[in-house]
């Protein structure tokens, strides 16, 4: 279907054109949302078509634009004098995240249907954000990767800073500077690899091909810089402090994109860039990765128990759940890395539901402080159903997507380290505890008298539809995880081969 069509570039360009069109609307700003929805829906549909065309076990014969395991591959030289090219392509690791991005951006725009404060800028920035995230997931050139990586920061900074809550100034600037410092660590690591590889190109594949020659000490140092850079984004304890602030202040759609997509960029960077290019460094860092992963799982969970703000609780739960991603990667095994990528996809779907429901509660009740809520299920039955579904999905109920992902992570950990498995499993118990407890206090029990519930209305259509779609997908991939896992698995095999070749198993 897409022979000789630069389909990935078109998908990236759609929201970019859409954002410029949105910015230029002038006094017709109230139509911004229609334009934004149209462009992001087009991008989503096209990305669906791409995933339909995507072949699980690609070869030059059966797939479109095949190149070294990548499909829909495009390569144009850009800054020849320093070896920068525009190279994009998709494989099993990037495809799920790519489609997740187009999906969540479309749904977030629908969810923000009633935004009245500066709608042009709001919907325009959201589309620029989509451009950046999509670019990160498809770039196969370090320079290009870094450019897209940084492009993401600016719209998110504005989204928190302009449409955020009371303490937005502090949160926005903290987010911007914290993650920018992390990016700079990545930049220095990229420069070091570029010069060490001596191929005069920023192409990820060409540098990875030279990584055989990288000394162990060099790999350790550069992997350390990348681990820090990507880990801040992930986020991992102890570099997570920007996340609760950013989430609490960000508007709902901003939180959805932040947790659903931006955190995934950190995990994606580790599996796409750091681990395959620096296998020896990854081997030497395994203990650090594992300890930090388990610390994130437990710490995130325990802090959740103490939260009064529903949204802050969900934010901390992200730290806990992204710890599973890191834990999967830390095993450096086929199963673990596949599970880590799948957990990223699962968390993207689930956390979007959770943040959207926090937004609904805030929207309808005017507060999201758990002590002020209670018995809302009587007044908002649909919202309560959706929220219960979301919470159950997030705590890993079998049949939901998170269960499949977390189960695989634990399995891989058991294969690697045996009964140490019991340490992170405590995290699951904590997760169940804080979710059920929060659900009980906010949705069930006697109706609260701390807020005025007489005019309380149930969830609006533009909020319910995105949440409903997401929950349907959560159930679908919970029952048929192999739809995605088989694709990730093929791509991880390549990385696994690299690790075995150079890492000594």
């Amino acid at each position, binding site marked *: 279907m897409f022979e000789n069509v630069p389909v990935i570039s078109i998908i990236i360009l759609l929201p970019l054109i859409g954002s410029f069109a949105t910015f230029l609307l002038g006094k017709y700003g109230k139509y911004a949302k229609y334009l934004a929805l149209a462009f992001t829906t087009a991008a989503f549909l096209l990305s669906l078509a791409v995933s339909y065309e995507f072949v699980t076990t690609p070869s030059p014969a059966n797939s479109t634009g095949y190149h070294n395991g990548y499909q829909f591959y495009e390569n144009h030289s850009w800054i020849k004098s320093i070896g920068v090219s525009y190279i994009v392509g998709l494989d099993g690791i990037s495809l799920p995240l790519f489609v997740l991005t187009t999906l969540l951006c479309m749904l977030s725009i629908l969810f923000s249907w009633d935004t009245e404060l500066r709608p042009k800028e709001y919907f325009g920035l959201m589309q620029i954000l989509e451009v950046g995230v999509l670019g990160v997931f498809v770039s196969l050139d370090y320079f290009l990767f870094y*450019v897209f990586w*940084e492009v993401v920061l600016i719209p998110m900074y504005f989204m928190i800073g302009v449409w955020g809550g009371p303490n937005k100034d502090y949160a926005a*600037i903290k987010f911007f500077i914290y993650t920018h410092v992390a990016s*700079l660590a990545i930049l220095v690591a990229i*420069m070091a690899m570029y010069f060490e590889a001596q191929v005069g190109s920023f192409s990820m594949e060409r540098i990875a091909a030279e990584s055989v020659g990288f000394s162990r000490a060099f790999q350790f140092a550069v992997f350390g810089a990348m681990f820090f850079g990507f880990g801040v984004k992930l986020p991992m304890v102890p570099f997570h402090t920007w996340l609760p602030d950013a989430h609490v202040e960000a508007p709902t759609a901003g939180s959805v994109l932040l947790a659903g997509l931006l955190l995934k960029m950190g995990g994606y960077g580790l599996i796409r860039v750091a681990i395959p290019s620096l296998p020896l460094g990854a081997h030497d860092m395994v203990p650090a990765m594992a300890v930090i992963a388990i610390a994130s799982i437990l710490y995130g969970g325990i802090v959740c128990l103490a939260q009064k703000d529903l949204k802050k609780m969900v934010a901390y739960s992200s730290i806990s759940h992204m710890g599973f991603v890191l834990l999967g990667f830390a095993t450096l095994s086929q199963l673990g890395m596949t599970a880590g990528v799948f957990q990223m996809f699962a968390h993207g779907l689930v956390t979007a539901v959770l943040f959207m429901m926090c937004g609904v509660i805030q929207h309808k009740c005017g507060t999201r402080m758990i002590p002020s809520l209670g018995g809302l299920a009587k007044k908002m039955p649909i919202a309560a159903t959706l929220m219960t579904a979301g919470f159950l999905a997030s705590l890993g109920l079998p049949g939901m997507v998170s269960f499949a992902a977390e189960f695989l992570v634990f399995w891989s950990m058991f294969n690697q380290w045996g009964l140490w498995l019991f340490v992170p499993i405590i995290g699951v118990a904590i997760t169940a505890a804080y979710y059920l407890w929060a659900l009980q206090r906010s949705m069930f029990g006697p109706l609260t008298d701390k807020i005025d519930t007489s005019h309380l209305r149930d969830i609006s259509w533009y909020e319910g539809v995105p949440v409903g779609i997401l929950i349907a997908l959560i159930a679908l991939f919970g029952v048929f995880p192999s739809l995605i896992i088989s694709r990730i698995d093929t791509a991880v095999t390549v990385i696994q081969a690299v690790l075995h070749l150079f890492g000594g198993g």
Partner: protein
Amino acid sequence: MSVLNQMDWLLPQLLLVLFALILPALDYLFKDKRVLSLAALVPLVGIALALVGWLFMGLWTFPRSGVPSALEVNLFSGLFMLVFVSVGIVVVLSSPEFISKERNQGEYYSLILLAITGMTVVAEAADLIALFVGLEIAGISSFALSGFKKREKRSAEAATKYFIVGGFSSALTLFAISLFYGVTGVTNISMMGPLLNNAFTNLDGSDSVALLATVLLLAGFGFKIALVPFHMWAPDVYEGAPTPISGLLAAASKKMGFAAFFKVFLIGIVISKTDWELAVAALAIITMTVGNLVAVSQTNVKRMLAYSSIAQAGYILIALPVGTQYAVAGGMFHILTHAFMKSGAFMVVAAMGACAIGEKLDDFKGLSRRSPFLAISMALFLLSLAGIPPLAGFASKFVLFSSAVYTSISPGPHWLVWLAIAGVLNSALSLYYYARVIKYMYMEKAPDESRVKTPPMMMLGILFAVAMTILLFLFADSVVNLCLDAAHGSFPTLPLGR
């Protein structure tokens, strides 16, 4: 006409001087003073187009002097000249509204043209005396320009301060030149090198004279480009001078200092590089760090931009201790991008002055409501200055810093990598105060929400700078290539470094 034929390589300077002489006369002829700025644009745009045709399109080659002379036209000088005239265009476009109430506007433009003439002479100088003459032409014109609003105390103070410091730095420079002449017997920059080598090997004491001259020159040029600790004058002058002139000083005048720096240090006295590289590297790190740290606490945006351009000078200075062709190309690329983003930022401040908003940080509150155009332009300039892609500042910083990383890996010395690390850390630090301005523009409420209209010519100037800030990123390839060619042509003895 044969004389003219032999001097065709001086055409740009002749054109600039000619218009500089005509402009005061035009002042008497026209009531509408905007004519003056249009007239001043004629030579600038003409030269800019000619340079673009030469450098990027290869439509023609610029005439070069036939005999070895005091001035030499090459890619290096062409690129710098392009920087100077482009900044000149931005400055002239945003001037009419800014000085509309002043007298003697013809002289204002004529001084701008003369300052640019001086800068182009520095860019072409192949001889220390020509270099000095160029520095003086540009310097004296700039002193007068910074005091142009002579009834304003700040402006007069700025001019006086600038004059005294400028005079002092000229004296240092001239003294250094005379010492070099004493040691080597020549003033030609490229002939100095081998003769200086003799001085160093003869051990007759002339090597210490040469070292003294190097230190004096470092101080003399250091004042020109406001290196810490020779920077004290810059914030006061930038703050006091008419805002378009601050832009000219930061974006063009400073770059002239770098042209001189590159020529003398990397051609003339490159032989003693091991003696001065550590000192220059230390100056670079101190300059960028002090500039950024002090910028954080500024409440006046003009002053903040002044400190930011001190910091940016520190980044560019990295090219000297690294001392490879690639590093020089990176330095030139950053000079080019910095010229647009910094002059653009000053022009936004100038526009705010012209709209009677003010130039304090507080005056930027809610600017996105009052003038979306100014706010988005300022945001782009500041993000580019901080080195955030996809803007020009990122590309040029990338080349500049990576040159230090590369040279530290392969021939060494290894400590050069600290220049890149210091640069990267400083970029992160600088983001704080750049982002703060953006925060004020977009996230704070203005006490007065009324919309303001940017004067059309200013808008054109700012738009030009915005376009260049984006285009220089997208078309970085041809620019980097050009910078590499220029560095190769002018500094053939330096290692390639890539």
